[in-house]
């Protein structure tokens, strides 16, 4: 069967089981958009290519399947570099297809030429510049294989226009052997000696902590984690990337560690004698000053990527495998922990003394952001997916939203990309139309990518957006208040400009506003009742509210600052 490269590309995506592509066409990718008309693929036309990338990420995080985005060359390609970087930092599987100028024009500064494989070399797991139509099926198959196996990540395929236009005899690689990846071996066998040493450390520890990172979700290890934790009674902390990997309601869950983690999670790690590290990477936002981090702890480090071993913290035992395999092996070893009663007594005491807390809102406003998040969570159905932007609202969402299930928290962790929330929520809803999807957004973040609500409305993707409108770039304001003598520099945004309700309406969404507790309850009910179009709510929140606890940047986790109402009690 003779096909054009463009047809072969679309057919290859179908072959991979892709159902949704997020994108926006242009000159160099034009040939590929033609056969799309005859395909069963759903294409979601975005309003900015950054939106396509974040949608693909939201889709991937919510479904566990790779997200696919397609854009044109030059500015189309550079517009999607931010989401690619974001996916690289958070190990999210993406396949990004970019158009490229014709092969004969490459290197000649042709119209809309840019060296996107060069630009993205450091922020992709791998990328391809495809040289012939015949090679396209192989590139697609290899890209999906790379994106989804081992440590997942973004893979980019750059397709010159003439490659898409020329013809080939249709073929598709039958197996991995035909992917031409002689240097790629994502799985290795578990080392039994190292496993024995890990088990011995677990059996000897008196203050163990399960330090659960995003790799636990990637390897779909929640059930194994629950079983292992319950059998051993070892306390659990879930990082920002792992919220939902272990139920928040579980009595063994101490919460999130790190800069804005719970006192108990942070301090449990500090006092621990054994960190059982599961697909986590000792990010500086978790460790605080590394020299002062968990000084007495031995470290078991489970990771599929061996370059993580010793990158930040030297492990006592490093197990190169996926988290589910490691947990099953721990379980099969029959390992028992020491009696942990003393440890738990200590943890319970901290938990009681330093719970997450905030001051009650005044009845006539302004709203407390934490209260708004709890009110939404209480009224929404179980299994609701929540996405967020980056800033204070993100930290409050991570702290106060009760996560019970994996893949219900869609978030930008490693890169901290403002504007991630709205498009990521749209992507998540596109992938999981059966779920309610809320985006907890900041007013600053919303202004970066809000135009994708036009996409959501026109594509029939009814997400709900809660803007925690504090009229500030709040997280930066918090740092300026606390560490720059309240010298506020370029952080004020205004609560009324733009008018978020009118803006929402102009984009075909329902726009609502709440300024006090009574209105808050009403608009949440109203939003919950709307299921056909996107809803945006402008919640007027207290600008002076700060995120606590907090470990100042560069400080030791021992110097954690709790909420002002809890100070002096220590």
């Amino acid at each position, binding site marked *: 069967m003779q096909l054009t490269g463009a047809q072969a590309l679309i057919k290859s995506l179908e072959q991979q089981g892709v159902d949704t592509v997020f994108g926006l066409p242009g000159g160099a990718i034009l040939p590929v958009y033609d056969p799309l008309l005859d395909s069963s693929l759903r294409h979601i036309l975005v309003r900015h290519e950054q939106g396509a990338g974040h949608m693909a990420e939201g889709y991937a995080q919510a479904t566990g399947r790779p997200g696919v985005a397609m854009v044109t060359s030059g500015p189309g390609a550079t517009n999607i570099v931010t989401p690619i970087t974001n996916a690289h930092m958070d190990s999210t599987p993406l396949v990004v297809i970019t158009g490229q100028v014709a092969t004969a024009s490459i290197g000649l500064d042709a119209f809309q030429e840019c060296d996107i494989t*060069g630009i993205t070399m450091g922020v992709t797991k791998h990328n391809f510049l495809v040289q012939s139509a015949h090679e396209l099926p192989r590139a697609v198959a290899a890209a999906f294989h790379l994106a989804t196996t081992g440590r997942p990540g973004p893979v980019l395929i750059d397709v010159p226009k003439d490659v898409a236009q020329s013809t080939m005899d249709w073929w598709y690689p039958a197996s991995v052997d035909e992917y031409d990846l*002689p240097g790629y071996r994502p799985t290795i066998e578990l080392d039994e000696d190292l496993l024995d040493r890990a088990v011995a450390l677990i059996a000897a520890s008196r203050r163990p902590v399960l330090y659960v990172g995003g790799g636990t979700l990637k390897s779909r290890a929640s059930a194994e984690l629950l079983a292992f934790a319950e059998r051993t009674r070892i306390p659990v902390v879930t990082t920002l990337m792992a919220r939902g990997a272990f139920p928040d309601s579980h009595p063994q869950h101490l919460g999130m560690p790190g800069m804005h983690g719970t006192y108990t999670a942070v301090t449990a790690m500090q006092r621990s004698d054994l960190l059982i590290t599961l697909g986590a990477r000792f990010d500086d936002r978790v460790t605080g000053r590394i020299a002062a981090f968990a000084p007495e702890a031995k470290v078991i480090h489970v990771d599929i990527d*061996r370059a993580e071993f010793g990158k930040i913290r030297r492990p006592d035992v490093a197990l190169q495998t996926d988290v589910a395999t490691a947990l099953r092996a721990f379980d099969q070893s029959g390992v028992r922990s020491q009696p942990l009663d003393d440890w738990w007594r200590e943890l319970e005491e901290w938990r009681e003394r330093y719970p997450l807390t905030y001051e009650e809102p005044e009845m006539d406003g302004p709203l407390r952001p934490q209260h708004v998040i709890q009110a939404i969570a209480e009224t929404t159905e179980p299994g609701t997916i929540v996405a967020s932007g980056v800033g204070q609202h993100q930290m409050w969402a991570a702290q106060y939203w009760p996560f019970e299930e994996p893949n219900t928290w869609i978030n930008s962790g490693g890169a901290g990309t403002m504007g991630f929330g709205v498009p990521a929520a749209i992507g998540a809803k596109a992938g999981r139309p059966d779920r309610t999807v809320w985006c907890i957004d900041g007013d600053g973040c919303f202004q970066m990518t809000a135009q994708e609500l036009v996409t959501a409305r026109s594509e029939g993707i009814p997400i709900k957006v809660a803007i925690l409108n504090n009229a500030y770039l709040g997280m930066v304001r918090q740092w300026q208040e606390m560490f720059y003598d309240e010298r506020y520099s370029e952080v004020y945004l205004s609560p009324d400009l733009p008018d978020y309700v009118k803006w929402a309406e102009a984009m075909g969404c329902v726009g609502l506003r709440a300024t006090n507790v009574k209105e808050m309850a009403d608009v949440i009910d109203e939003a919950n009742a709307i299921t056909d179009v996107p809803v945006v709510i402008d919640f007027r929140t207290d600008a002076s509210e700060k995120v606590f606890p907090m470990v100042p940047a560069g400080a030791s986790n021992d110097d954690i600052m709790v909420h002002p109402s809890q100070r002096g009690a220590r």
Partner: protein
Amino acid sequence: MTPPEPFLGDTVHTPVRHHILSVLVENKAGVLARIAGMFARRGFNIYSLAVAPAESDARFSRVTIVVDAESAPLEQIVGQLDKLVNVVAITDLSPQDALERELLLATVPTEDATRGQLLDLAAGAGASIVDVDGTALTVMLAGTPGACDALERSLESFPEVELHRTGRVALPRLGRTATHEE
């Protein structure tokens, strides 16, 4: 992986704790940029880098990289290198297990008065004369990095020397083994 041992050889261009990575890579466009970019991005130092087609198979090239095992732990460097999809195999040679050779070429302007001195120096170093005209000589030395260093130092007394070195290639010494990372 064995920890790097100090190299006690006499060199000016390599630190004491250098290691030699012999890296088999796919012979594809941009592979060298991927390797160099990764080193730059991660702050790993490269002392020299030499590329040539691989012995047996046209699909591959061999890159010999002398790395500074002090700028980062060797297992970090190898781990990150191994993650590059086009990297097929990494052989890690510690200096005492390696047979290392390098090529030095130097064009030295000479006058009648200094020509004899240069010829003696070259002969003493085991270098050969590969080009001559009335104003200059070009000397060549294929030798250990230490021998190349020594010759380079002795040539410092001549003005306006144009000197190039290839960076080293290496194989395991007979009877010694390297650490293979497939």
